[in-house]
């Protein structure tokens, strides 16, 4: 991490770069798409393929035609379709058929979305049916001779079936002479219509376009992804995630992976007799972390409420109440800018474990993270585009144990400084750190509190070295208002942060449970707040009173679930792992005025 200033500069530069990249991407894509369409219409003589004709139509016209068609038919949206088999079962059961073999005495029913339609005249059509997300695709060979419909009905019906429609098919299994496992429909029902022209899918990596019953999308968690092969523009993918999910099986895999990650963590904690709890998302005071909260208002109670920024203070109250091991997986909300690693709402897992300390938690962190990587990828290494999509991906190694870096000790060594943790509250230290930052050209935006200066230095010297998982441990007390003083190192706390790919993923400590010291720390925070640091933590008297009743020695731990998911899915943008990420309002016009070159 650079200093705040350079950070900002590089962020705007990054944004500009990204914008330009998008524009260029868009231009290329449009050109490409035109070329593709042209090729398709050239390759196939007019009149032979109605599907292609349709897709040359103007989208508004296409939509209107579809609406007209829907209005002309009875019961356009059936209530139910009975599915007898999943795609996987279908493959397992009938994958072994001989080429050309048909099982006409068996009837199966499958349902899914049509992503490809080819016709071989009016009496024979081929469809690619996508059954389950990230699953297989099944070829449908619709033959007028087999259908329940007569020939003219058949051709009329199938000319109305469009790419994107959801269909239910009952028929018999068989293999074509060329050896493709197919389903031969006797009845073919459109269950729901796609009223818009679906974008043409790009062939996915590892899946030849005409491959049948191949695993759709060769991507598995832990391997690199190539977003450039995706059909849709990035903006569309985030705004219309359902389209993204329809078009790209990798995306479906990403969210399945996310679901598995959460499931693994939950199971890990449940197996250790942790109890899952729910604490309020709306509070009177936003405590437990230093962040700007969302404010809302309860009309009936006539009361201002803030959205939580961390569940920490409530979870510790439950430990005071006698629940020795509690955890909560849930959303936190911070009213901050949106960037590649920050979203206004994000998911964390926090757990609190009575009678454990930060050493215990470091071991548990290693077990959880290496465990989840092993469970999902089969190994300990994850391939990740750490240096941008245009560079080779790197391997991040989750093999435990993780490196441990003593913060002040290592900082002194690497920057050749002489910071004494015992005396960090003095003005001299503050001046010393300001000079150090100046010397290394690390910018720290005001207020230049000692805590903030130290944070910048750590970012510059230590965090950047943490590509494989590494613990930065023993933070100074002034940086950690809720952590317990170190049992043998004066001025420091028993705290660690886990960094992976230079980003913080976990934060944990032996919890401060001395109410007198806790109140003192809040008072110190207030001083920072008064000196202009609006991210300093506010005093929560309810919480301090709970400490008066006695919090047992406790280890507390927080994990950024989204960031962990990013690492496992080769995602550089947090929006890749959020189903419906927060976006700017669409009607927002780009800033007016002359367009600057390159923007």
């Amino acid at each position, binding site marked *: 991490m650079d200093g705040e200033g350079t950070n900002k500069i590089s962020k705007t530069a990054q944004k500009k770069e990204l914008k330009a990249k998008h524009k260029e991407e868009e231009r290329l894509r449009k050109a490409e798409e035109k070329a593709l369409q042209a090729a398709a219409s050239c390759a196939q003589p007019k009149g032979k393929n109605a599907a292609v004709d349709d897709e040359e139509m103007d989208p508004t016209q296409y939509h209107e035609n579809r609406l007209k068609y829907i209005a002309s038919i009875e019961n356009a949206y059936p209530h139910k379709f009975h599915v007898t088999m999943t795609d996987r079962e279908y493959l397992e059961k009938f994958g072994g058929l001989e080429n050309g073999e048909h099982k006409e005495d068996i009837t199966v029913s499958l349902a899914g*979305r049509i992503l490809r339609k080819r016709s071989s005249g009016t009496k024979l059509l081929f469809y690619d049916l996508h059954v389950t997300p990230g699953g297989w695709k099944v070829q449908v060979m619709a033959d007028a001779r087999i259908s329940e419909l007569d020939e003219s009905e058949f051709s009329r019906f199938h000319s109305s079936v469009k790419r994107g429609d959801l269909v239910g098919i009952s028929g018999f299994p068989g293999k074509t002479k060329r050896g493709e496992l197919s389903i031969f429909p006797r009845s073919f029902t459109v269950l729901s219509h796609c*009223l818009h022209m679906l974008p043409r899918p790009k062939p996915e990596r590892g899946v030849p376009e005409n491959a049948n019953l191949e695993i759709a999308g060769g991507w598995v968690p832990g391997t690199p992804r190539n977003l450039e092969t995706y059909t849709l523009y990035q903006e569309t993918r985030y705004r219309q995630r359902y389209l993204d999910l329809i078009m790209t099986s990798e995306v479906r895999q990403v969210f399945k992976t996310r679901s598995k990650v959460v499931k693994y963590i939950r199971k890990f904690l449940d197996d250790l007799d942790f109890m899952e709890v729910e604490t*309020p998302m709306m509070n009177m005071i936003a405590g437990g972390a230093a962040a700007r909260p969302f404010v809302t208002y309860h009309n009936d109670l006539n009361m201002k409420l803030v959205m939580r920024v961390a569940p920490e203070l409530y979870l510790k109250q439950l430990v005071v109440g006698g629940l020795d091991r509690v955890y909560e997986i849930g959303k936190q909300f911070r009213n901050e800018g949106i960037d590649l690693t920050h979203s206004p709402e994000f998911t964390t897992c926090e757990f609190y474990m009575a009678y454990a300390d930060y050493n215990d938690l470091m071991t548990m962190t290693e077990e959880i993270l290496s465990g989840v990587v092993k469970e999902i990828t089969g190994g300990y290494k994850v391939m990740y585009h750490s240096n941008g999509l245009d560079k080779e991906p790197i391997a991040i190694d989750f093999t435990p144990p993780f490196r441990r870096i003593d913060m002040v000790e290592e900082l002194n060594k690497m920057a050749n400084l002489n910071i004494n943790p015992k005396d960090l509250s003095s003005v001299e230290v503050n001046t010393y750190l300001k000079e150090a930052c100046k010397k290394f050209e690390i910018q720290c935006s005001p207020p230049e509190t000692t805590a903030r200066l130290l944070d910048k230095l750590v970012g510059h010297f230590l965090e950047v070295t943490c590509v494989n998982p590494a613990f930065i441990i023993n933070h100074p007390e002034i940086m950690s208002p809720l952590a317990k003083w170190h049992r043998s190192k004066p001025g420091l706390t028993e705290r660690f942060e886990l960094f992976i790919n230079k980003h913080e993923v976990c934060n944990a400590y032996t919890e401060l449970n001395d109410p007198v010291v806790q109140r003192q720390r809040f008072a110190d925070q207030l001083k920072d707040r008064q000196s202009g640091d609006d991210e300093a933590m506010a005093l929560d008297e309810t919480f301090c009173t709970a400490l008066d009743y006695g919090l047992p020695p406790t280890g507390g731990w927080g994990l950024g679930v989204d960031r962990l998911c990013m690492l496992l899915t080769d995602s550089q943008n947090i929006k890749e792992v959020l189903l419906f990420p927060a976006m700017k309002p669409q009607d927002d016009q780009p800033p007016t005025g002359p367009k600057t070159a390159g923007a």
Partner: protein
Amino acid sequence: MDAVRLWSLSSQPLKQLIRTTTTRLVVRCCSSSSTTTGGLAPKAGGRSRRLSASTSTSDKDAVRAIRLNKVQELRSKGLEPYGYSWDRTHSANQLQHVYKHLENGEETKPEEDGVSIAGRIVARRAFGKLAFLTLRDDSGTIQLYCEKERLSDDQFDQLKGLVDIGDIVGATGSIKRTEKGELSVYVSSFAILTKSLLPLPDKYHGLTDVDKRYRQRYVDMIANPEVADVFRKRAKVVSEIRKTVESFGFIEVETPVLQGAAGGAEARPFVTYHNSLGRDLYLRIATELHLKRMLVGGFEKVYEIGRIFRNEGISTRHNPEFTTIEMYEAYSDYESMMNMAEEIVTQCALAVHGKLTLDYQGVEIHLERPWRRESMHNLVKEATGITFNEFGNDLQGAKEVTLKNLGADLDYKYKSSIEACSSIGHLLNEVFEIVVEPKLVQPTFVLDYPIEISPLAKPHRRHAGLTERFELFICGRELANAFSELTDPMDQRGRLEEQVRQHNEKRSAAISEMDGAEDKREENDESYEVTLDDDFLTALEYGMPPASGMGLGIDRLVMLLTNSASIRDVIAFPVLKIQQ
């Protein structure tokens, strides 16, 4: 991790466990801690016991001062009153179980069968050279049997002078069943792990103040261990729901809490403002519309367990934030969701109670399947004799018959709400809510709601004017709401537009009514804006498979299964009015 592993072991050599007790002799290194002032003599064991029974502010302050002195005294002896960690071999409950065979007066050999436990002291009796302490942990309680001779050096004096009720201590020793039959840890060494500064409330008088119970839930849990049980059961219910739906192949997803438009239900949303986006955002009032987008995207079985927010009044049944599960299954209809509801509720009941007959506030509830399934029309007819089908579109006639039928002594509130109904469907529902709902004590699926009050449900395949929708009622309360989902985008657009139109009508009527009484405007129910979620409609236009969906209120299910009268009893930190 040691602590984790040791937790599950039944016996462990004691020597390794002494580690933490000896490292407790840590000298404080942070100067900010020594802020307490000396003064009062710390020899006040008897006095503090008297004080711990009372909770008035001045007494509390006195106790706090005394105990802060004990903190000082401990530190002056080189003992840290706020320990770092403690390795346990057993929980109290495990000990009770493992050593249940021990005869009265029998003791295990300390060198072979040493145990280590930790927890809060909830009772103590001290005699000359003997002290009995009751220790409680997450699992239960056990007695600490402390004898002066067994303890090293001046530990017994520390125990008598410095340990108060409420302190969290760790203790090691052997196991002995006293002559009176009480299983005890025969303590050979102990450490104060956390010195408590405030007295615990008296079990019988301390927390009669209901409001305080909710405001200081942790005190409630310390004083009444059965309160913690409710939350243990809640965790079990949520876990059981997850297990059940995942066994059917459902995948858990997370959809946004902060949204540009709050849809999927009719309720006043919370509004907030995102500084850097420079726009208002709403807190979700349902997860429905985003989960349906997942079905459009190709997921066939999805669910989300999560918080929903409604900016409405609080009551024994309503908290502004509450937890639901919503689930959606492609290619199925509402019949399949009825089976799912039965499956979920019975599995949870079995997980919590081990049986399907339970007591709720004095009423016996039978959850054996199958549950009654009856249409709303039939239930209303059964209760009132009115056949709503016969009215056709004659709303006025229907109202007259209804009012006559329900009798002259009907509450004015109900009369006016009947008068206000804008359609036969609304009227039917109103009568249902007044007459039928409170009587649905045993589990009942109420089927086929009028289309006017079901904007997201599919029209019934056989009965015009109705939808394929059900609500599940137990104990007169709605527990679940489900339908065959409306998939026709044109129909959906029409219904949502109608909903917005009706809302705006009510809103402007309400606002003009309010013009006279300015200060009441804020409290008006309809004074919020409802907007159309166009993106959801576009998603439907890409095609959503036939599907059924259900929402089930987890707080209400937990209330039922824990026999809790108020939603505040099942939410750890409920929203409360600002304290006077």
